[in-house]
């Protein structure tokens, strides 16, 4: 019997790691995720572990929610794959921080009340910020700071919504206003963000989650921070934050119409930005947004098929995205280069990295017999079943675009294209092992998908088939869509030539606009107000002292001679200024 949140094995184990020496901590890094995975599966179906909080509230630390099994399983598995990939690195803080991050994500999936969920949600932000900082460069330091700031602001917005809603419930006389069941806004008909009193709580909570889900324009932190982390750090980062948001959206906002639009926006945004990008890991970061867009869209559609599809896609996505970033990370690790313009021709000497990257690229593109095919098609199918024409056409176009921007672009520019002259060997054995493990999973899931379907939020009734991905029509139509979009890539290749450029995103607002606003506008005002303060309080004080000088021998009338010229000037200027303002207004 497991009487505690399984994720705590990772969170608390991580704190042990620095104490047990190098070999010990490496062993722990492989054992802890597997222990967590085992613990997840040993939590009894009717588990209900509670704790008192502030005397008045009962927190539900462990309970099974519909999508818990999918997400807790993949989060634990991911922690193992990531740890294997990171086994040879010497950054002392990164892996423990990544485990706190991963363990908190597992804890979120078992939370039965909104406060427990929120506490672990914030702990994830702490862990992941440290992972970004572990990149160890000046750029990662700054990016980590921005990352942390955005996430804590997002958390504060979410907390405000939780407070607003729970206080409302308390006023209505609910016993335990923190229970998750009172926060299922999607099911109770919440469709759009709004300012009406009844909408305010859910709106703030949704905004907070959408920050973490990387929905534009709230999501530019992702492509800003992830590529600045270390090779292994980025692999961890890609897995948990956005997918935990998908989980929480699924719990709270299933069927909220706005998410269909948010998902479509994300799917297209990810492609457009990835097409223009030159940094290989940033290309993959944008494609996270694109893929999460499919899931968010599915959650907005909200049918059982759509939610199953979103959950399955999150599972498949974590594996192939980690695999792609491992492949890119291996290239970075061996060459020290990250720009497509500096890379190319690596197929000569990095065959394992190349093939694993290609398998990840096929899986993200949803090629038949890979994991993406059996998961994403459920979301498209649910759009078709619901006769949602626009979402279906956008998602189908986005599916084609995935192959273009991630499926071909990444392998082509990194491993083929031109001969960069680089001849690095494949990375150390543990990195290869992690890649081969995840590549095998990508294909295994595409062929033997039944175990995944069995743990989805809405499993099939006994004797029924949940969904059959492999029909001749489906395979043919998917291959057509993908291969013809591949043709588009090669026809447009002259246009897609990489340049030394970036594409501005919403983070421009707080990286350039706000500092500029301060420099050009706010700072001069502050300086001016400082001068006014000097005049009002310093100069007038001097003036007053002059007025009341004890050694003034002359009569009160003669003190006018004591005025300093400066003080008089200032006083006159001030009077004129007041006159000007008043007169102007009239």
């Amino acid at each position, binding site marked *: 019997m497991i009487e505690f949140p399984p994720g705590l094995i990772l969170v608390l184990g991580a704190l042990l790691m620095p104490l047990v020496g190098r070999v010990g901590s490496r062993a722990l890094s492989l054992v802890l995720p597997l222990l967590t995975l085992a613990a997840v599966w040993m939590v009894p179906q009717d588990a209900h572990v509670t704790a008192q909080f502030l005397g008045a509230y009962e927190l539900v630390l462990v309970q099974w929610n519909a999508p818990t099994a999918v997400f807790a399983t993949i989060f634990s598995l991911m922690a193992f794959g990531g740890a294997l990939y990171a086994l040879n690195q010497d950054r002392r803080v990164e892996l423990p921080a990544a485990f706190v991050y991963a363990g908190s994500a597992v804890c979120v999936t078992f939370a039965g009340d909104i406060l427990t969920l929120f506490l672990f949600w914030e702990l994830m932000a702490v862990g992941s910020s440290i992972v970004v900082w572990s990149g160890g460069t000046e750029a990662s330091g700054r990016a980590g700071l921005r990352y942390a700031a955005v996430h804590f602001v997002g958390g504060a917005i979410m907390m405000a919504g939780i407070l607003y809603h729970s206080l409302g419930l308390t006023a209505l006389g609910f016993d335990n206003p923190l229970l998750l069941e009172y926060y299922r806004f999607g099911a109770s008909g919440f469709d759009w963000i709004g300012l009406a009193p009844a909408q305010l709580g859910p709106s703030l909570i949704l905004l907070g989650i959408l920050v973490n889900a990387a929905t534009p324009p709230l999501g530019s932190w992702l492509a800003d921070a992830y590529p600045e982390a270390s090779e292994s750090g980025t692999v961890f980062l890609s897995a948990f934050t956005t997918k935990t948001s998908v989980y929480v959206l699924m719990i709270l906002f299933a069927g909220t119409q706005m998410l269909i639009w948010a998902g479509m926006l994300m799917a297209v945004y990810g492609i457009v930005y990835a097409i223009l990008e030159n940094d290989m890991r940033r290309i993959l970061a944008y494609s996270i947004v694109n893929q999460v867009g499919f899931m968010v869209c599915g959650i907005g559609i909200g049918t059982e098929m759509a939610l199953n599809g979103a959950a399955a896609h999150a599972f498949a996505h974590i594996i192939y995205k980690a695999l792609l970033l491992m492949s890119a990370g291996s290239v970075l690790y061996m060459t020290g280069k990250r720009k497509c313009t500096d890379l190319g021709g690596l197929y000569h000497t990095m065959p394992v990295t190349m093939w694993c990257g290609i398998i990840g690229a096929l899986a993200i593109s949803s090629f038949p017999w890979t994991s993406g095919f059996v998961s994403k098609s459920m979301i498209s199918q649910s759009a078709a079943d619901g006769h949602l024409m626009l979402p279906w056409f956008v998602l189908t176009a986005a599916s084609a*675009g995935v192959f273009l921007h991630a499926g071909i672009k990444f392998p082509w520019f990194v491993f083929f*294209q031109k001969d960069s002259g680089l001849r690095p060997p494949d990375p150390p054995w543990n990195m290869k092992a992690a890649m081969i493990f995840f590549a095998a999973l990508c294909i295994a899931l595409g062929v033997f998908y039944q175990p995944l379907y069995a743990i989805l939020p809405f499993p099939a009734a006994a004797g029924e088939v949940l969904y059959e991905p492999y029909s001749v029509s489906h395979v043919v139509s*998917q291959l*057509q869509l993908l291969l*013809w*979009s591949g043709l588009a890539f090669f026809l447009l*290749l002259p246009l897609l030539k990489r340049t030394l450029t*970036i*594409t501005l995103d919403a983070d421009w607002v707080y990286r350039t606009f706000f500092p500029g606003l301060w420099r050009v506008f706010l700072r001069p005002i502050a300086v001016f107000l400082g001068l006014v303060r000097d005049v009002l309080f310093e100069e007038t004080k001097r003036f007053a002292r002059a007025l009341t000088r004890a050694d003034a021998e002359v009569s009160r009338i003669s003190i006018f001679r004591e005025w300093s010229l400066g003080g008089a000037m200032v006083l006159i200027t001030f009077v004129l200024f007041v006159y000007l303002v008043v007169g102007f207004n009239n």
Partner: protein
Amino acid sequence: MTTQNNDHGVVARLREPWRSMLDERPGAVRAFWIGSVVVLLLLAFADLFVHHHEHFGIDGAPGFYSLYGLLACVAMVLFSKFVVALFLKRKDTYYDD
């Protein structure tokens, strides 16, 4: 360069990104292209024999997925390249100073 007699033709422009690969493995590149064209045509004409269940009228038409995939990608590339990039593209040292 010596293999090209017209540096500005469409074929030459399509060949340009492949120059390095052509120098290294001309056989493999040729096989890749011939194989791709055959597979693309086979797939597009497979629709004459495979029935696609249609949900929105047009999506059951033969060759729909081929054409839609191609056009959607062309549209997205052109949109990125000539609309988004026009306003938002900067040198990659933009944030460095």
